[in-house]
């Protein structure tokens, strides 16, 4: 048992629960700088899991490994049972991604952005248009389909990116600090929408964040600090394990950092 696993509050997914994502013993370094150190975590199917950590904790690196932007050199990552290194196509087609940086092509229309994404998943023609219209309607932006992406507000762009991530019907949605830079109304609208995907469709969500107020009591939480997993479990047990009264203080106790948002 490693020092990391000794700190676990409770495994996120019991053995019988199907896993949407399994990360086992993953380490990653940029030259001499170690970004992730023996990280293991699990995201249960149909659960909302918050990956909580400070800036520089390794969240973006971990998400880059999950999405195969970088190769996993130490350890393994599986998406719905498909190893990202051995069967990347199978893993990636089951995965929807919203990156921290804006990834819409601003020069083309919202609809063209969605159709391009559909083509990158082998979907074209009427089916692509049908799906694009459906996901746009879901995020209440059907009327902006013909607008150039650059005409949208930050919150609207984010909603289009979430719509795009859902277009190919993934079972796992990975979002890297999706509410950073958004106003309060947009932030909660996006959070509500993503939670509804979990509740109503059973999509598993890995939500990387440093904002404590985005976490609810029923969520699963993984605390990542300096490239290591310090705690993993549902929010209540992580708080209880840290001997704290709330997530803010639990995070401070676990990481040895002052209270406040991570």
């Amino acid at each position, binding site marked *: 048992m490693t020092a990391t696993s000794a700190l676990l509050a409770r495994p996120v997914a019991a053995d019988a629960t199907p896993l949407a994502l399994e990360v086992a013993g993953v380490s990653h370094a940029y030259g001499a700088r170690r970004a992730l150190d023996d990280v293991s975590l699990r995201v249960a199917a149909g659960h909302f899991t918050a990956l909580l950590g400070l800036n520089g904790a390794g969240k973006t690196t971990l998400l880059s490994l999950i999405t195969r932007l970088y190769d996993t050199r130490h350890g393994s990552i599986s998406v719905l049972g498909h190893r990202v290194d051995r069967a990347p196509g199978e893993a*990636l087609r089951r995965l929807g991604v919203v990156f921290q940086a804006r990834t819409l092509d601003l020069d083309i229309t919202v609809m063209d952005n969605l*159709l391009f*994404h559909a*083509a*990158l*998943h082998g979907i074209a023609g009427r089916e692509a248009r049908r799906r694009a219209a459906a996901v746009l309607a879901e995020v209440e932006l059907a009327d902006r389909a013909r607008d150039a992406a650059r005409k949208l507000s930050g919150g609207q762009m984010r909603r289009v990116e979430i719509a795009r991530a859902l277009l190919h019907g993934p079972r796992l949605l990975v979002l890297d600090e999706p509410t950073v830079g958004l106003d309060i109304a947009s932030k909660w609208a996006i959070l509500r929408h993503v939670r*509804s995907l979990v509740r109503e469709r059973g999509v598993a969500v890995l939500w990387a964040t440093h904002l404590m107020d985005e976490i609810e009591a029923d969520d699963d939480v993984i605390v990542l600090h300096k490239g290591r997993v310090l705690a993993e479990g549902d929010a209540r047990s992580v708080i209880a394990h840290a001997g704290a009264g709330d997530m803010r203080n639990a995070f401070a106790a676990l990481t040895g950092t002052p209270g406040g948002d991570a």
Partner: protein
Amino acid sequence: MSGAVLATTTRSGFRASQYLICLYGIVWREALRFVHQRGRFISALVRPLVWLFIFAAGFRQILGVSIIPPYQTYILYEVYVTPGLMAMVQLFNGMQSSLSMVYDREMGNMRMLLVSPFPRWFLLVSKLLASTAVSILQVYAYLVIADLWGVDIPSWGWLTVLPALILCGFMLGAFGMLLSSLIRQLENFAGVMNFVIFPMFFASTALYPLWQVQQSSPILGDVVRLNPFTYAVELIRFALYLQVSWLSLAVVGAMTLVFTAGAIYAYDPARGLLARKGPA
């Protein structure tokens, strides 16, 4: 925000038709961007035209071009530089494409391409094909104006040059893609212009025949011979006059393979250079 239930992807692998859909999507997006960025098209056209209208007009009086293959008679300097300027259009397009890849990587757009479930090599080759298609449109637009300016091009040459343009466009696009993997930030791109693009263009047969370069500087002549861009220019030059320069074909073909393999290697998450550099 709630509503339609979407079908889940459950099948394994992709059909050939889905590969075509993906390829079409990438080419279509490149074409859309090209249409939206009119400045890019105009500058791609103005650059060789400045050389043709001003530089070549001045040099025709002082630079004689003797009879060298593939030409069968004395030619005007404008005629000589036209293949070089066609290759120049492709060189700059390749670099523009490379610049846009660095920009896309910084802005995040590139990530959406790289997290597609299709094989990474296929995505990169599709992007190269898209960039090549755009460069060919630019070259033909330039050729139309050159023709109106009085540069005489054989009628069949318009057609026979097409395979050469495809190969050269692919080689230069792959070279640009390989470069883009080595450039971390847009700011570094100016260095590429100074240290790669200009030397490649000027130390080639685009502006002067090899024998003239050789006469004035044997060392520069050797550099010109070692420059792959020289062979792209000659491949286009011969194809435009319904001939094949087999040496140029071999060099351009080989360099296309080398640059493409290098670009695929550089963008391969398992072996490439990007993972070692950290998040862009």
